[in-house]
């Protein structure tokens, strides 16, 4: 075990642990944001630069600070390392600039984006971004395309985190999509449209941090904050069968894998579970899902509409009744 101090909080971790994962042991503001890193995807991380932190002391043996900010998701801790995350003005300023870079070509269309409420970039920008844009240039645009029967790619919103290509590489039988071109012109593409049709391709949607890869079955049918996420499972020979059912009333609007507090999926699910069982009777419903990460989904008390509202609520002109009303729990 080796000792590391992050934002003044000391802890012991196993050798080989990255700064990001050490910070996640502590939790809260100490955890750097991650747009491209995904624990279960090998080779992810290091690209978005959102998780840059300052290493104020390299190790107990070599106390010199690291000359540049380092990507916490792929830098292993060393014994005696001192890391500054939210306590470093330099880190916070850099993070502001990373939001700005990510938004230079990303449309600010959150009100109509299908990822609204679940978008990591939206949260990242909310926490670290500027109030207004300094870029006056036209953002790049692409036409949305269908990649396979289930997924719609809207490249305009892509931030090139490479997570979906890693899912394709590591979870599916064959990879039929990747990154074309380079630099700002880079784009995710299958080269031949409608080519993504393997059993685990749906996970590409779950790992996408923004609204670039969307579910063609769910797309624009509802907003996530109107839905009631329920943990459910079924016997499946291809995957664990553990999912989240997104319900409105009794109707299943979509099925996704279960995400943790860092928006990461541990048990990836197959396409059969995701797209072939839209009846609640196909599932064993375990109960309401606790969305661990702060989200508009948790903010919404989705049980409201299923509760019969008291008559007094309809007497809206009488404010004293409203004042007396304690709310529906």
């Amino acid at each position, binding site marked *: 075990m080796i000792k590391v101090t992050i934002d003044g909080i000391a802890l012991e971790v196993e050798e080989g642990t990255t700064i990001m994962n050490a910070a996640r042991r502590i939790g809260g503001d100490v955890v750097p944001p991650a747009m491209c890193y995904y624990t279960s995807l090998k080779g992810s991380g*290091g690209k*978005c*630069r959102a998780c840059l932190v300052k290493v104020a002391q390299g190790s107990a043996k070599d106390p010199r600070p690291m000359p540049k900010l380092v990507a916490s998701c792929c830098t292993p801790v060393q014994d005696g390392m001192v890391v500054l995350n939210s306590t470093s003005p330099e880190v916070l300023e*850099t993070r502001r600039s990373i939001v700005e870079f990510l938004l230079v070509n990303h449309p600010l269309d959150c009100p109509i984006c299908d990822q609204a409420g679940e978008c990591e970039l939206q949260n990242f920008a909310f926490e670290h971004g500027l109030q207004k844009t*300094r870029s006056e240039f036209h953002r790049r645009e692409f036409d949305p395309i269908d990649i396979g029967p289930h997924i719609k790619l809207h490249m305009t919103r892509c931030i090139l985190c490479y997570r979906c290509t890693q899912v394709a590489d590591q979870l599916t039988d064959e990879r039929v999509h*990747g990154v074309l071109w*380079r*630099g700002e012109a880079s784009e995710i593409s299958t080269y031949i449209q409608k080519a993504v049709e393997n059993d685990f391709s749906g996970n590409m949607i779950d790992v996408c941090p923004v609204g670039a890869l969307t579910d063609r079955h769910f797309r624009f049918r509802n907003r996530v904050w109107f839905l009631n996420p329920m943990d459910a499972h079924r016997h499946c020979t291809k995957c664990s069968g553990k999912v989240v059912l997104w319900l409105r009333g009794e109707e299943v609007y979509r099925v996704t894998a279960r995400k943790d507090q860092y928006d990461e999926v541990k048990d990836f699910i197959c396409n059969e579970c995701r797209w072939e069982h839209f009846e609640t009777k196909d599932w064993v419903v375990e109960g309401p899902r606790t969305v661990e990460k702060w989200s508009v989904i948790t903010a919404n008390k989705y049980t409201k509409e299923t509760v019969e509202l008291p008559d007094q609520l309809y007497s809206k002109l009488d404010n004293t009744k409203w004042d007396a009303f304690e709310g529906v729990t």
Partner: protein
Amino acid sequence: MSMKILLDKVGVAGIETLPVYRAHGGYSAVEKVLKMAPADVVEEVKKSGLRGRGGAGFPTGMKWSFIDKKSGRPRYLVVNADESEPGTFKDRYLMEKMPHLLIEGIVASSYALEANLSFIYVRGEFRWIIAILEKAIAEAKEAGLVGKNIMGSGYNLEIVVQTGAGAYICGEETALIESLEGKRGNPRLKPPFPAVSGLYGNPTVVNNVESIAAVPWIVNNSGESYAKIGTPKSAGTKLISACGNINYPGVYEIELGLPVEEFIFSPSYCGGIKDGKRLKAVVAGGSSVPILPAGLILKTANGEPRLMSYESLSDGGFLTGTMLGSGGFIVYDEDQCIVRNTWNFTRFYHHESCGQCSPCREGTGWMERILHNIEYGHGKLSDIDLLWDVQRKIEGNTICPLGDAAAWPVAAAIRHFRDEFEWHVREPKECLVRNYGLPEATVATV
């Protein structure tokens, strides 16, 4: 006259062929190293003080000593011949004129590293050089200087010429390795460094053509002799590719420590500024290094003559200094527009960014558009501050040095030539020094 190590035989008829090269003492270094212990060769290169000639200037011998020999895995030497920085064209010249010198260096260096397979990663556009190299390797192989049981020593070495597809980023060592493995040329995260886990996950040393070509002389004449050439911190000679508004553009081999003034104005080198005009600025080490105005390139901040060496060119940091870099020496006369030049460089980095990390992918494009606006009379004064801020936020925050390479020229141009940027904003469509008069549509952004 300056001492020559790499180019002294250039001009000898047929020196690119094996018989002529051997008649002039070629491959004597191979003969010598094969009788030495590999560790002694590494030691000799360490003593020489040879610094990597690709741009970063890291000590070559030290780099070699980092290679993991304990793992027992195969080791590789990769020669970086993916020369593509604007203003730098010295490796191309060396490979074209002295292919056997490079091959001799590869054999000696590979022996020191105990590598049995070496690669020359050449920029794909250098078709004629690839043919020259392949012919030279075939000649050397035929003569038993490359291949199995070299000179009867029992040492085996194969050399493979691998062509790139013309991406600037593939000159970065880890991107080069990715490309060599047949993948997209994206830089890898470091650590692990290639000396521990490089090509196919095995220990690999990536060296520039010029660095490897210097090894035969070091082996033949000793590291100490090499260290005596040049300055204490910048040993040996360096190839400089000079271009721009000078009378004699070309590739020169200089002894490190030569005064910059002499290099620009001496008839033995650049021969002064073209048409008798005045010197305005110099980019001393390829397009990625900061540009310096005439006053600062000729003299350091302390008023001492600026020398062509790693330490003298960087004297004062980036505030008053620059870098020797890859030796791409671009000279500007008083008629050249710095704004246009900066836009042009940024256009290059925007085009060549691999797109892997967000500051470089998005920042280079953003800078290019701002510069385009300023150059074409659509800029605002606040754009100059915005440009400064954007470059500052790219620098140091990217996976590989391409982000720095894109940021430094912009930073230096604003630092030293801010008045020109302001002039472009205040006098729309009029360059301070010259209006190029190109129709805007023909130079639209990519």
